[in-house]
């Protein structure tokens, strides 16, 4: 047992750090550091930079464009990206549909889809949830009926993140209603510009537009866009959900969040002194930081098991639960730090309009961020569902 990095790892860390320093565009950094809503272009540009360096898909097998890094290197890479506050990798292509494709698709499909994912030329979105399905994903109703060499897709998907920017969707559809729920599901890819696809924005309680409803009205999808076998979609869906959990704990992001909280608490005043000297605020910050440290080492232990070929198993549900609790707690403390200025709704400034911010810039978006982050304990399998998973898969109850 040893917490220190090897000389090779330290050299790698320096390499990553200096690459970021030299290549992270200043305008994107400014927008992210200010907490403004990012543009699509921010993500694409940054991912292309990583792609050109060969670093965009560390989790992929080397043969498909992965980096071949050790678990420690992947950890260092994530840490450095997080510390630099770069745009997060948009997961839909690189972390979700990509692994499904290189694992289950035909050679032809691999050739057709993987390059666009790696280069970020194609923006993907995820067609899983439906208005009625919620946590009970397998109850989905969107239908795909085969007619000759096409599927005709009818139905709708919801909570489709960034669908307004998406070129393609990977979509769970019901191809057989006569069998058990899980057995009648297939995994289809299709172009979001196909006739019959409509995207309707869902505005969230923070005033943002991040998710959408997608309606499919007789959308024609060529059969060669089916991944794997008809009726096996649930298998691929579960593979996808279980596969890419690295970063799910969001430790690097939360470390940055706590650093920012400290900075805020050092400048906000309470009774004439900095808020950080208020014993209650100080204690809560300390508790949060300790929680995060525990999560960080729990993640490291998970990675260690993983690098020995064990897992990531259902234990990683812990990372999701604790990770989101911490992310949410950070936004709670930001609202508390903001005091009365938490009231100010700087939404247009947050969306990038050239409007003055009411109150200190550092807490200008505290309340909307707090409201927005409530989603994290709901999405990706609610935290209640994660506990069901642990109870069943880890504790054997």
């Amino acid at each position: 047992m040893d917490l220190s990095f090897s000389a090779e790892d330290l050299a790698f860390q320096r390499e990553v750090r200096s690459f970021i320093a030299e290549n992270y565009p200043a305008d994107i950094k400014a927008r992210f550091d200010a907490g403004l809503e990012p543009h699509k272009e921010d993500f694409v540009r940054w991912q292309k930079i990583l792609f050109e360096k060969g670093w965009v898909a560390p989790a992929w097998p080397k043969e498909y464009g992965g980096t071949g890094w050790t678990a420690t290197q992947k950890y260092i890479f994530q840490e450095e990206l997080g510390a630099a506050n770069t745009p997060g990798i948009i997961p839909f292509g690189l972390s979700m549909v990509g692994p499904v494709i290189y694992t289950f698709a035909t050679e032809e499909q691999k050739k057709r889809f993987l390059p666009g994912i790696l280069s970020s030329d194609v923006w993907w979105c995820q067609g899983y949830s439906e208005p009625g399905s919620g946590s009970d994903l397998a109850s989905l109703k969107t239908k795909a009926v085969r007619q000759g060499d096409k599927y005709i897709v009818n139905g709708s998907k919801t909570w489709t993140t960034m669908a307004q920017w998406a070129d393609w969707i990977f979509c769970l559809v019901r191809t057989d209603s006569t069998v058990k729920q899980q057995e009648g599901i297939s995994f289809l890819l299709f172009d979001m510009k196909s006739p019959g696809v409509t995207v309707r924005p869902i505005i969230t309680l923070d005033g943002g537009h991040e998710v959408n409803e997608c309606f499919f009205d007789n959308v024609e999808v060529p059969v060669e866009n089916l991944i794997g076998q008809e009726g096996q979609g649930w298998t691929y869906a579960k593979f996808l959900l279980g596969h890419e959990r690295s970063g799910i704990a969001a430790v690097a992001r939360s470390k940055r969040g706590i650093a920012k909280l400290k900075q805020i608490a050092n400048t906000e005043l309470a009774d004439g002194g900095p808020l950080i000297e208020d014993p209650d605020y100080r204690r809560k910050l300390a508790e949060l930081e300790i929680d995060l440290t525990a999560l960080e080492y729990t993640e490291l232990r998970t990675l260690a098991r993983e690098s020995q070929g064990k897992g990531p198993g259902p234990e990683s549900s812990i990372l999701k639960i604790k990770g989101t609790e911490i992310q949410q707690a950070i936004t709670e403390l930001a609202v508390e730090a903001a005091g009365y200025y938490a009231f100010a709704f700087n939404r247009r400034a947050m969306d990038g309009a050239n409007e003055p911010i009411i109150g200190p810039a550092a807490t200008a978006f505290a309340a909307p961020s707090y409201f927005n982050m409530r989603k994290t304990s709901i999405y990706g399998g609610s935290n209640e569902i994660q506990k069901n998973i642990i109870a069943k898969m880890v504790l054997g109850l």
Partner: protein
Amino acid sequence: MDFNYSDEQKLLIDSVERFIQDDYGFDTRRAILKSEDGFRRDLWQKFGELGWLAVPFSEEDGGLGGTAVETMIIMECFGRGLVVEPYLSTVVLAGGLLRLGGNAGQKETILPELMAGTLLAAVGYAEPTSRFNLADVSTTAEKTSGGWVLKGRKSVVLHGPMADKLIVSARTSGGQRDQAGITLFVIDAGAAGVSRQDYPTVDGLRASEIILDGVAVGEADVVGAVGEGFALLDRVIDEATAAICAEAVGAMETLHKATLEYARTRVQFGQPIGRFQVIQHRLVDMYMAYEQAKSMAIMANLKLDAAPEERRRAVSAAKVQIGKSARFIGQQAVQLHGGMGMTDELNVGHYFKRLTMIETLFGNTDFHLKRYAA
């Protein structure tokens, strides 16, 4: 000891509840939020006609002579409907300061209009660096021959954009955080030297940053005694705190009911989610949090006339309980509604946002815990 409403109070409850039900649906409120003014003047007039704006004022002053219980009733019902009209600012805050500290002239000129619904008012008690300490006042009032000149900035003045009159705290003597030396002044919102930056709040209200750049006021514009504004402000902010505790109780009640109803009907994995024991216990925890909050809101409102020490402790205790209950119920209502709870479309998020800001308003949980234990 008596925890029952009188017959008159029951009538008042009926009347406000009927208004919320018939005239203040979610779509109506949504339209108000999007409107230029951010409130409905015609509804406000109606409040005046129904006598709600006259509730706390003495019969001598032309009011109805109601107690804190009547204000509690109105605020609790307003909480159920998430009413955004400036009742808190105009009636409870500004009205409270004038009721307890106003001179005869102020009462005569302002209160009748206020009660009639033709005059709106707001109170500036916070400053950019004051946080929740009412004594942390940097705005200065400099003595002139005929009165005073105000300079400074009041921040997050709720309902500031629509106010005809403003009451602000300013320092006439003492150091920045001294309780002594604070004086309250009533000024015209349109007076020379007053400038405003208006903005919406995250919970659907409107607020202003108010810059006072050499605003001249007369001796007659002092509310209460010179240099002794703190005690008056402290008392009225306690009244307002008790009032928003009641508002929060109303909001929590609606939110808990909505979540309960959702749990009964939303089917997942073949059964209503309200059948899952974890959801059941969560709803029980929310119910307990609501009941505890309700108990404390009643307690605080009934203790507003107690000696200042007891009043302060009672109000702070209630605000702590309400802050904790509001956070828990608000967060869990969103959580149990799942994705739908995250949308602007559903009322749940709006209740959650208002509850969140009530948690902050007049001092958050940490502030009131310290004030309680002081």
